[in-house]
Every structure is written in structure tokens, then in C-alpha cells.
């Protein structure tokens, strides 16, 4: 029966392996789940879920699977509460429900409800639903003791309550991140190579040389391994990006940390890249994009960050920039394509949640740059793409935009 729970978990992308499932079975055979749902909740999580980011998915799966055991009882509760307040309504219950109720002592039930109600207030307020399931527990569903309802007894809370609270939501991987998490994600962006001064003892070579010298020690040094990745970071600032400014500053903090990349440069733009980008967020130090392209190595990694949301004309019309002085002949789209064509690997991270992407200018830009949402998962995938290449995610259908703008120049 539990095997469905395994598939419930796997369906929610919790990678439980046979190995771990067998361990769980072994543990249950040893009685480590303490014959309770709470015990099982903890045991299964500790054996099958190895990442805090997946705890929330586990909670969801647990709820989904074990709720199935409760639902009928859950429905009964509402009626039951009413009935407790107004015993005359007893007749309104179905024969089946009445039969269930006859199986228990009314006084005791009332007492339990009151107690439960009290505990609810103390533990977490507004627990409407917990009064609900709590009230049903005397029915004996869900494998608990039919008479004694273990309502938060013994200091622990019931597994369902814990799962329902979903405390681990903030650890999910598809949410936006803090500096440290970005830091960790960016660690993937590296290609080690030996360069620079001879600082490290090369033991193998030393032994080799020494042997060739017939035992006279000759010491060989070599340069230490360093990250050779060079990064250009271009960030959209102002306007629609204002809500994301905190996240952007975290990304910048993590990316610009010294010694991370062999070379790191950052530029700012507003809305879309036209002929000029800026070295500062106040747009005081302009840099011609053409110059930038001429002076940068094609092996440098281009990382674009922005919401890619704008009026279609700003992207597709030549001279579409909202700034008069920037109205050059090429469209923003053309400039982006030049950037993408110059650099061998480039990625665009978008702080806008990806469910809002389709049907906007994001579709067009995502056809130029591989685009990932600026979340832990998105960042990890984008970094992998930057290092190893691969398939770019497809967003919507950009061709309809082309028609709308009368063809892309």
C-alpha cells in the first residue's frame, strides 16, 4: 500500500531511490517508526529526503497521500461541530453518520473537543482545520488509536499538523535567493587552469626529476590552479526592475567577490541594450557596445540580468529607445543579437517568475539568449549551460512578435 507514497514522492520530484525505500522498509520492520504516523513521517523523511529544499515537496506528498485516508472523516467534522452546538440537528445526520456517532460516548467527545479547542489556541491560533481533523481522530481513521486521540500530546505535534504547516517552504529551490545561495550557485561557473607565478610544489614532477638525477633532489614548482572564467555581467536597472533591486544587489555582491573570476566586468543598461551601456548604475560613464565587443574576448561569458519586459516597439523598432540620444538605427533586438553572436556562451537571468513570461517581449529575448529564472534552480541550470553548453529552454512562440513588428531587421 505504501508503494503509492513512493510514487507520490517521486512525482513531486523527490528523488527517492529503491535503495532508500528498502532502507525504509527495513527500518519499519525494526519498528523504528514507533507504530505511529508521526514516527513514520520523521522516519521516512530522514531516510528518503536528503535535501532541505525537498522537505516542502515531501510535506506536500505526505499531505496528499495521507489526506486520502482522512477525507470522509474531515467532511463529517463540520456537521459534527454544528451538531455539538445544537443537538436537535441529530436527526439531520445520515444513518451512516449516526452509526458512527453511536459508537462513542457523547460526554467524552464533548470534553475532547473542548480540550482540543483549548490546545489549538495555545499552539497555533486559527487552526480551524486542526480542530477538524483532531475532532475526527476518535473515529480511529489513519491508524491511530481509536479511543485515545493523540492530540499534540507528549509535547510533539501530529505529523499531519507539521506537514500541513509546511515550515520548509522557504527552503524550496524554486524561490529567489540570498547572497550565500547565489555564491554557491556561482561556484559552478569555473574552469580551472594553471596560470601565473610558480608557487606550488609539483610533487610528481619533483619525484620524476629526482629519479632521473639518480637520487639528487631537484624541486619543481608550478603555478597554482585558478579559475580562468571571465565574466561580463550586464544588469537592467530602474523602472520595472525596481522591485528586484535587492535581489540584483545580492547577485552583484556574490558575483563581484574578489578572486572569483579571472576577470569580472559589470555594466548597466535600462530596459534594453542599445548602442551604449554604462559602467555605473547612475548612467554617467557610457561605454559604446561596439567598443566593448571589439575589446572583449569571445570566450568571456556574458551574463545578462533583467526582466526583459518592455513595449514591443522599444525592442523591435529601430530607434526604439526611449532616450532620444540613443536613437540609433539598429533596434534593441539587433543589439542583443550582436551581443549574443559575439560571445560563445551567454545566459539571461530573469527575476520575473517564469509563469509570467509567455505573451510578453520576454519571448523574443529568450529566443536570442538562453533564459532562466533568477532562482536557485534557474541559476544552477544557467551556470551549467554557460560552462558546458547544451539545450536552451524554449519560451513561447517568438515568431508572432516578428510578424507584429513587420519583420525583424
Amino acid at each position: 500500500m505504501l508503494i503509492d507514497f513512493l510514487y507520490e514522492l517521486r512525482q513531486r520530484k523527490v528523488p527517492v531511490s529503491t535503495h532508500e525505500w528498502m532502507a525504509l522498509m527495513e527500518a519499519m520492520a525494526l519498528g523504528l517508526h514507533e507504530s505511529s504516523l508521526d514516527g513514520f513521517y520523521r522516519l521516512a523523511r530522514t531516510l528518503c529526503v536528503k535535501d532541505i529544499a525537498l522537505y516542502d515537496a515531501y510535506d506536500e506528498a505526505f499531505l496528499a497521500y495521507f489526506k486520502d485516508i482522512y477525507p470522509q472523516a474531515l467532511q463529517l467534522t463540520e456537521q459534527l461541530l454544528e451538531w455539538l452546538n445544537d443537538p436537535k440537528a441529530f436527526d439531520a445526520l445520515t444513518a451512516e453518520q449516526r452509526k458512527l456517532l453511536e459508537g462513542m460516548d457523547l460526554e467524552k467527545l464533548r470534553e475532547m473537543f473542548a480540550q482540543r479547542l483549548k490546545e489549538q489556541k495555545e499552539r497555533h491560533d486559527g487552526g480551524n482545520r486542526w480542530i477538524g481533523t483532531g475532532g475526527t481522530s476518535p473515529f480511529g481513521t489513519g491508524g491511530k488509536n481509536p479511543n485515545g486521540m493523540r492530540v499534540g500530546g507528549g509535547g510533539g505535534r501530529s505529523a499531519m499538523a507539521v506537514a500541513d504547516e509546511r515550515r520548509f517552504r522557504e527552503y524550496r529551490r524554486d524561490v529567489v535567493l540570498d547572497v550565500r545561495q547565489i555564491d554557491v550557485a556561482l561556484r559552478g561557473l569555473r574552469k580551472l587552469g594553471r596560470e601565473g607565478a610558480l608557487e606550488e610544489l609539483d610533487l610528481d614532477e619533483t619525484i620524476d626529476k629526482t629519479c632521473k638525477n639518480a637520487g639528487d633532489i631537484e624541486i619543481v614548482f608550478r603555478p597554482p590552479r585558478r579559475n580562468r572564467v571571465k565574466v561580463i555581467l550586464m544588469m537592467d536597472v530602474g523602472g520595472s526592475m525596481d522591485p528586484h533591486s535587492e535581489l540584483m544587489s545580492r547577485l552583484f555582491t556574490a558575483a563581484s567577490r574578489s578572486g572569483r573570476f579571472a576577470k569580472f566586468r559589470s555594466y548597466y543598461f535600462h530596459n534594453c541594450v542599445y548602442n551604449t551601456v554604462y559602467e555605473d548604475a547612475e548612467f554617467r560613464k557610457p561605454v559604446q557596445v561596439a567598443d566593448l565587443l571589439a575589446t572583449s574576448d569571445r570566450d568571456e561569458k556574458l551574463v545578462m540580468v533583467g526582466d526583459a519586459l518592455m513595449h514591443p516597439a522599444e525592442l523591435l523598432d529601430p530607434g526604439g529607445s526611449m532616450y532620444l540620444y540613443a536613437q540609433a538605427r539598429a533596434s534593441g533586438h539587433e543589439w542583443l543579437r550582436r551581443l549574443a553572436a559575439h560571445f560563445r556562451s551567454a545566459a539571461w537571468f530573469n527575476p520575473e517568475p517564469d509563469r509570467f513570461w509567455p505573451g510578453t517581449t520576454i519571448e523574443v529575448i529568450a529566443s536570442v539568449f538562453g533564459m532562466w529564472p533568477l532562482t536557485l534552480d534557474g541559476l544552477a541550470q544557467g551556470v551549467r549551460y554557460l560552462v558546458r553548453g547544451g539545450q536552451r529552454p524554449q519560451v513561447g512562440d517568438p515568431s508572432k512578435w516578428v510578424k507584429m513588428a513587420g519583420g525583424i531587421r
Partner: protein
Amino acid sequence: MSEAFDQFQGTASYIASEELKHAVNVAVALARPLLVRGEPGTGKTLLAENLALSLGLPLIRWHVKSTTKARDGLYVYDTVARLHDSRFGDEVDVRDIAKYIKLGPLGEALASPTRVVLLIDEIDKADLEFPNDLLHELDAMKFRIDETGKEIAAAERPIVIITSNNEKELPDAFLRRCVFHYIQFPNRELMAEIVKVHHPDITDKVLDNALEVFFGLRATPKLRKKPSTSELVDWILALKKANVDLSRVSGGIPFLGTLLKTEQDVELMGKRAKA
């Protein structure tokens, strides 16, 4: 079963949550390594010390560094010492390689005639492949010293506690073999208990005030490093030593430096206090 199962109940100086105790006991019962993760300062390393203490077993520590190799944990063949002895050593028999084999922490744990607790601290500090290199040894609990051909197998499977700070992703194959527990930041009640263990003479009122300030500070948005348990304990010690009554202090938190460790955070709190 129950006698063998509920072995770990925390110790007088270490308060463990129900979930943590359960995870430890599952790991002990299944004889699998326990992987513990959590925010810095939540007592991951202390867990191993206290587990050893409460079970009355010796503790062997292995502090992993960025340069640590898996093999170093098993044994090191000290070639340089042997070379030195062969050239300059007096009356040393350099033909006996075994003399130059030094067991590492994992090797020691496996060679021990009695059961031990092995702590592999901060496994994520080392190279990405490090955990993979340990798979076989942790599974079979035995290894071979290639130079001498000697095989060392554990008489009794050691209890292995592994800590990680989430700095790197650990390989799946490694994770599959572990029992996993994430130490959550203690809630207020548990924190009160923990503080009382370290400062038994603290009055409820002082404790309440201190926790109020502490959790208020943790809830402050944009902090770079949130203060943790060990910092709270230190801070209360500082308050006690200086005889500061928190309820009478107005404007700013005394000894903020014990709680906040980065300049930006202290500055941020300064700005907030003024506002």
C-alpha cells in the same frame, strides 16, 4: 527493540529536539552514517561529541579541509620519513613499510577493537568527489592498505556522524547511503531550554528579555549573518559579566558586537535604532 533503539536522549548540556533524537537513533539502529545539515551555530559538531558522551564511546574526529583527500582519512604512507631514514636514519629498518603507515581518522575508527563514534566534520569543504571516494569504505566498513596488503575491517561498525554546511551539493550516491537530518533553528521554547543549560542561574525575566531582543534581531530583514545559538549564549554571558539589566536599557543593544559579526550589519542596526 526499544532498549536498543532509544539510545540517544541528549545530555545534560546538549538539548536535542525530538526529531533530531529520532534521526540519531534511526541512524544507530540501521548502522548507517547520519548526515546533519543546518545553519552555522546550531550545534552540528556538538551533536557527535554529546552522542559519544551519552553512549560512553570514544570519539574520533576528522575535520575536513579544502585540501583533504579521502585516502588521507584511511592512512598516509609517509614516504618522506622513509626516505629520510634510509639516508640518515641510524639503525632503523626501512624495509618494514608498516612502520611508515599512519592511520587517518577513518582508518583509526575502523581499526578500533571497540565501537567508536566517528565525526566527519564539514564534509562539503573538500573536493566534490571526496564523498564518492568514501562510499565503499563507509559501506563495507573495511579497507586495504595497498603498500602492505593488510586488510583492516571494523570489529564493530562505528557510528558515523557527518556534518555539512550546504556549501556544495553532495553526490546522490553518497546521499542515498545516509540518514539525513536538517537541524532547524530552535524555536523560542527550545532556545529558552538551551540557554538555561548554559546559564542555569538566569531568571525568567532576563531570559525573556534577551530572547525578545535576539529573535527581534533575527527577524530583521537584510542582515548578512543572522546571530545563532552560540552567539546568543555568548551575549548573555557578556550581559551577566557586565551586570546589564536589559529591561532598563534604552536605545540600542548592548554588546552588539557579540551578536552581529559584519560591519554592514552593525551599521544597519545603528541606522534602525536612530530611525
